[in-house]
């Protein structure tokens, strides 16, 4: 059970969102910062899928970018198989990089429109693996077939494919460096339902066949329910609840998780009239004090306005809410 591949400890990221220097001086404004990710902890076990769910401003994409090395954390640690990515030698980081890959959201923007498919899929091979010529070609063909395309597709350009097929090309590219860990940033949110099903099924099959570990970032609870082993719920940069999938959906503990599950439209919810939660997500530049969710929370206590709840662990579930076992 303790075979964790990824371990994230009090990961934070602050963005400077101030106006340019001259504007600040002229209008007498202070520097403004946005805490996109605020002390997030989680671990991902080898061969499983951890899903991070959140609405806009939750910081889920920022976490994804920090894990793959596209963004530097402001503070906190990311361990991958024991290697501390925030504090390792350049050589260690380089060798760890090929073990981490990413599948992107937009099937149109994630493939260079001027490159042939075989060059797109081949790029990580050139960067990491020491193969060329016939063996490289064979590997690219193999990858294309693995994701349900044909080796003949290698000679085509991305615009010759549909959205779903492009996402398959993106998956083939992610698999090219033989990674163990793949960060999937909303990989199906741009796809139609019938195509989404193809891609999700493909990703599950690949996980089973190759023993992959996924971090799955999404706003879609239905997709989480299908893909995840363990789910973390983010609200304005904080991880407010995390639990094994079944537990989370059967008995959500945090009021925000409850609201989110209740608000998601259901295919079997005929004529449902549900009173959705009040209000909208506040501006992340100036989030509410105390628990960020308190202005919208139907069960708020007076203390919620002041006190930032501490994470409480019960079994494999972790909740940050004053209603749950705080002193």
């Amino acid at each position: 059970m303790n075979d964790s591949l990824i371990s994230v400890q009090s990961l934070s990221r602050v963005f400077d969102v101030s106006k340019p220097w001259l504007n600040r001086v002229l209008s007498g404004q202070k520097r403004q910062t946005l805490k996109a990710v605020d002390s997030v902890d989680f671990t991902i076990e080898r061969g499983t899928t951890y899903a991070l769910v959140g609405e806009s401003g939750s910081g889920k994409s920022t976490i994804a970018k920090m894990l793959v090395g596209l963004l530097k954390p402001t503070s906190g640690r990311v361990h991958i198989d024991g290697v501390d990515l925030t504090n390792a030698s350049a050589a260690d980081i380089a060798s760890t990089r090929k073990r981490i890959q990413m599948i992107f959201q937009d099937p149109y923007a994630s493939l260079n429109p001027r490159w042939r498919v075989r060059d797109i899929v081949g790029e990580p091979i050139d960067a990491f693996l020491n193969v060329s010529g016939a063996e490289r070609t064979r590997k690219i063909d193999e990858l294309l077939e693995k994701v349900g395309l044909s080796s003949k597709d290698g000679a085509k350009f991305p615009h010759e494919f549909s959205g779903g097929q492009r996402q398959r090309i993106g998956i083939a590219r992610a698999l090219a460096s033989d990674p163990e860990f793949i960060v999937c940033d909303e990989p199906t949110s741009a796809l139609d339902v019938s195509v989404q099903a193809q891609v999700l099924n493909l990703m599950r099959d690949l996980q089973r066949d190759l023993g992959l570990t996924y971090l799955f970032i999404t706003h879609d609870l239905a997709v989480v329910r299908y893909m995840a082993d363990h789910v973390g719920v983010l609200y304005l940069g904080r991880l407010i609840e995390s639990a094994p999938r079944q537990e989370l959906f059967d008995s959500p503990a945090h009021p925000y998780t409850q609201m989110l599950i209740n608000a998601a439209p259901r295919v079997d919810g005929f004529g449902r009239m549900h009173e959705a939660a009040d209000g909208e997500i506040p501006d992340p530049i100036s989030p509410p004090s105390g628990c960020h969710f308190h202005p919208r929370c139907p069960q708020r206590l007076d203390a919620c306005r002041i006190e930032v709840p501490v994470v409480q662990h019960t079994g494999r579930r972790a909740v940050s809410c004053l209603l749950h076992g705080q002193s």
Partner: protein
Amino acid sequence: MASSRLARWWQSDVMWSWRRSPVAIVSTLLFFALVAAAVFAPLVAPYTPFDPASLNLMDGFTAPMQSGLGSGNMYWLGTDDQGRDIFSAILYGMRLSLFIGVMAVAFAAFLGISLGLIAGYFGGWIDAIIMRIADIQLTFPSILVAMLIFGVARGLTPPELRDQMAIYVLILSIGLSDWVQFARTVRSSAMVEARKEYVQAARLIGRSPFVILRKHLLPNVMSPVLVIATISLALAIILEATLSFLGVGAPPTKPSLGTLISIGQDFLFAGEWWIILFPSITLLVLALSVNLLGDWLRDVLNPKLR
């Protein structure tokens, strides 16, 4: 294989719109006719106007469609004071004008694309420095910038090499006055492209910025560059003509269209109108055809207008 490629090219959107635009067809044909005439000037020109040995001073100031008094040769567009055939001089002059224009635009494009890519991709203070330099340069008229650079460069070349180097100095000064256009356009496309996920995918696997700029960004910022290059070519040809007209450009021993116009100006009020009129018309037609071509290209390549 080759014929099917040709067929596909002929059927492409660009060629389709070309076939339906009379302006594009006329300006393309005109432009390529002028280019061909300039490139093959030694074959097309009836005389060798800049070979002093072949000149006959008695032929001077022959009016168009007249025979020279000395040699009895026929001059379609007349001759100048030294008996030079204007038609041949125009062909050679256009050859030089086009050469300087194309080279200057190539230089400006190289400089502008490189700096624009760097500014757009890296952003931050690198971007700020490059773009402020561009802003400052834009506050001066390009003719002033070109004259300034021309003057400085000329001052630095030894006098005996000046005439020889004049053409290269001209290319340098026109190119340096024109890179800003390219840099600005490329920078804004590069900023858009750099945020796209395919660039992130390349950064993720540790590709160097140089590889990302050259292999990923460059091919994706080129279509607006083509439009600017065309329009810049017209501007460069006019700028070169202006500089030469003002006497700071191509030397009279190797005249461009601008030098020819400048020479012809001396004779305008004496009644020898053809010496200035025909080079001027050539410059006008050349610049106009390039400009119309550029306008059409911009409309075709702009997805918003389609």
